[in-house]
């Protein structure tokens, strides 16, 4: 038996040597949902990174080195994300743009942290990823959920004068996280109280009971954490049950599909979302590039991934192509980058500075930014 242990230890030592890298390219991994029902969230990021890398390579790369892209699918599932992460590392990725979903990101991060690889997510908004301080290698080009919840709560209390707010969520990671922050901020404000805090089952055949309950609680505003399918069902049921409370939600609802599906029920709904960038020349250019390359309109988180890729390329230029963690981290924190989202840098926790949310309202079938 002891012999077996020695043999095993020997094997382990044999495999301990670091993987060999070809010195001529810098490999950047892109991980996210590239297949399955959430592919619409992951593929735009992949396209964005491709465009940025192609442009950089055409201009001579970084410090004379070309950048190579490795794409890996995680279908937004934690167990597949760890597979994707190990595959990227075993192929020699030294930087990763991804993952797209918070759960998958949480599962994969320890693996990257172990390997000292910098990760920039275009879309993982779970607050603890940065606030916990456990992942010094993690950055993101999007604002975390608590920022969003704070803006929504401020708007409901100060902008709409709500005194009694019902907080509803879809029991998911994203929706419930948002709702819990909203609840906390409402209670801390002292100006309003939480009338109701409940989760609904996504996909249920009927939401009348929860709407009746909201009505019974006499809430003057409903704050919903979750995605647009449930939001449009609840809004429709509220209209049918003649419930007049204002409906405020998150950027899972600030999606044109919501307006299309909910139709005239969507009118008047508030939703927070990333700041309007339609007048930013870089954003216009980024969308034009996507149109030229893929003959279609870019989807969700395209600008965020584009910004992340620009930040990565910029940081690599600052370190002269070195990919060690301390150097890159320093570069990401200090360098200001012009991106489609505006001029951004990253703070010590890894959150982007200069990326913000504002409140939109549906008016005549369009999201219109609400000026406070």
């Amino acid at each position, binding site marked *: 038996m002891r012999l077996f242990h020695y043999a*095993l230890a020997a094997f382990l030592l044999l495999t301990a040597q670091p993987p060999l890298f070809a010195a001529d390219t810098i490999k950047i991994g892109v991980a996210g949902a590239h297949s399955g029902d959430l592919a619409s969230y992951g593929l735009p990021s992949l396209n964005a990174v491709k465009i940025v890398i192609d442009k950089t390579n055409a201009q001579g790369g970084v410090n004379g080195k070309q950048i190579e892209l490795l794409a890996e699918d995680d279908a937004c599932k934690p167990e597949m994300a760890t597979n994707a992460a190990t595959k990227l590392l075993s192929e020699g990725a030294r930087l990763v743009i991804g993952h797209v979903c918070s759960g998958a990101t949480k599962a994969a991060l320890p693996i990257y942290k172990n390997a000292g690889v910098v990760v920039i997510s275009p879309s993982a908004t779970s607050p603890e990823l940065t606030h916990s301080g456990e992942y010094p290698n993690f950055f993101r080009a999007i604002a975390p959920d608590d920022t969003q919840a704070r803006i929504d709560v401020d708007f409901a209390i100060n902008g709409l004068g709500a005194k009694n707010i019902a907080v509803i969520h879809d029991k998911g990671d994203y929706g419930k996280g948002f709702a819990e922050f909203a609840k906390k901020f409402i209670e801390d404000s002292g100006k309003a109280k939480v009338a109701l805090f409940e989760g609904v089952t996504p996909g249920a055949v009927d939401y009348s009971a929860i709407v009746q309950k909201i009505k019974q609680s006499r809430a003057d505003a409903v704050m919903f954490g979750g995605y647009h399918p449930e939001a449009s069902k609840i809004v429709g049921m509220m209209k049918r049950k003649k419930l007049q409370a204002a409906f405020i939600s998150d950027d899972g609802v600030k999606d044109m599909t919501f307006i299309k599906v909910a139709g005239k029920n969507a009118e008047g709904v508030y939703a927070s979302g990333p700041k309007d960038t339609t007048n930013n020349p870089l954003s216009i250019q980024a969308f034009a590039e996507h149109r030229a390359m893929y003959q279609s309109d870019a989807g969700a988180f395209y600008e965020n991934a584009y910004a992340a890729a620009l930040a990565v390329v910029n940081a690599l230029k600052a370190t002269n192509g070195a990919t060690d963690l301390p150097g890159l981290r320093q570069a990401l924190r200090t360098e200001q980058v012009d991106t489609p989202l505006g001029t951004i840098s990253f703070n010590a926790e890894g959150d982007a500075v200069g990326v913000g949310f504002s409140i939109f309202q549906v008016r005549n079938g369009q999201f219109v930014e609400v000026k406070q």
Partner: protein
Amino acid sequence: MPILAEIRFALRAALWFVFLTFPIMVIKADPIGQTVIWRWRNAVWVGACSFFVCLALRLWKNYRAKHPALGPSNDGGSFIHRILDHSGQRRAFLGILLAAAILFPFFASSYQTNIMITALIYVVLGLGLNIVVGMAGLLDLGFVAFYAIGAYTYALLHLHFGLGFWQSLPLGACLAALGGICLGFPVLRLRGDYLAIVTLGFGEIIRLALENWGEFSQGPSGIANIPRPGFFGMTLSLDQSILFLYFIMIVFVIATIFVVNRLRDSRIGRAWIALREDEIACQAMGIDKQKTKLAAFALGAFWAGGMGVVFAAKTTFINPASFTFLESVIILSIVVLGGMGSIVGVVCGALILVLLPEYLRALSEYRMLAFGAILVLMMIFRPQGLIPTIKSRYPLENLTDDRP
């Protein structure tokens, strides 16, 4: 002219499929853009494909009817069984298999090894469920609950008490077995499909509790930073720990196969099989039905709990979304596809069902469509499973009548 008749039949089938798929394949109505697109080409495709597939199937069926020797052999999987029956060949076969398993990670990338770990986890899960469904004949649609209990045991024990993998492993397995007994008690009186729906409900209740009872389980955001198993106090790099986990799983699989094999031939294993075949006759033989059923639930759950701990250690992050009803369905499919009650079958079934979608990635969006179709086709052409179990035979040889 039988061939003409076949063509006529295939034509009719093709027409039927064109009709059947007409609204969904041909019309695409967009209520927002107020447009209707008629995709007639799809109808032609459906018609042509179903015509040829149907014709080919009919001709093959006719051909087989004329050549019965080529028909499906009923001692299915006989090749493997024949090897396993012969003790010398069996030893050689198992030796090669073991050597291949041990050498595999040194030739494959750590990504391949990682996938193989997942596949091995499902092998053990399948063997666990095989005790409940395959041997004792109790249809369990909530098996994933025990998997979840194991995973959360490790995650929570580590989070609150800092317990390691090796301490949590037996605890997780035993807690899951306890869960199995808790589920077993109320459902002892239920039979067949009533049992199925109650176990389904049990699985859902566990998942929903994990999702909603945030103070206990951290809710849908899950638990992160679960450590991988350490190697005698050494901290391992990522590649090493994957390798280590792989060998742990190899040992696990061997141990499971050994135990399950012995269990099947033991007194209690015989009792399970008797229970599956005929409950009443089994009771009449003096077998304690309650104890036997509870033992099946507990022992099946035991393996699931252990694998839950390994799963948590492998992904280092768990949330309730990993333990849905779909997962139970996949484990059940492993058992039925492989051949109920057959250990070799379950091992093959698990490897196929886990590795197939992974390598079907080339088909990308058609992957799940193909998966569903393969399940149906497998059942039609081999309803008894890939490698069905063979009943033990005790030939009556050398019997001498020495009665006075």
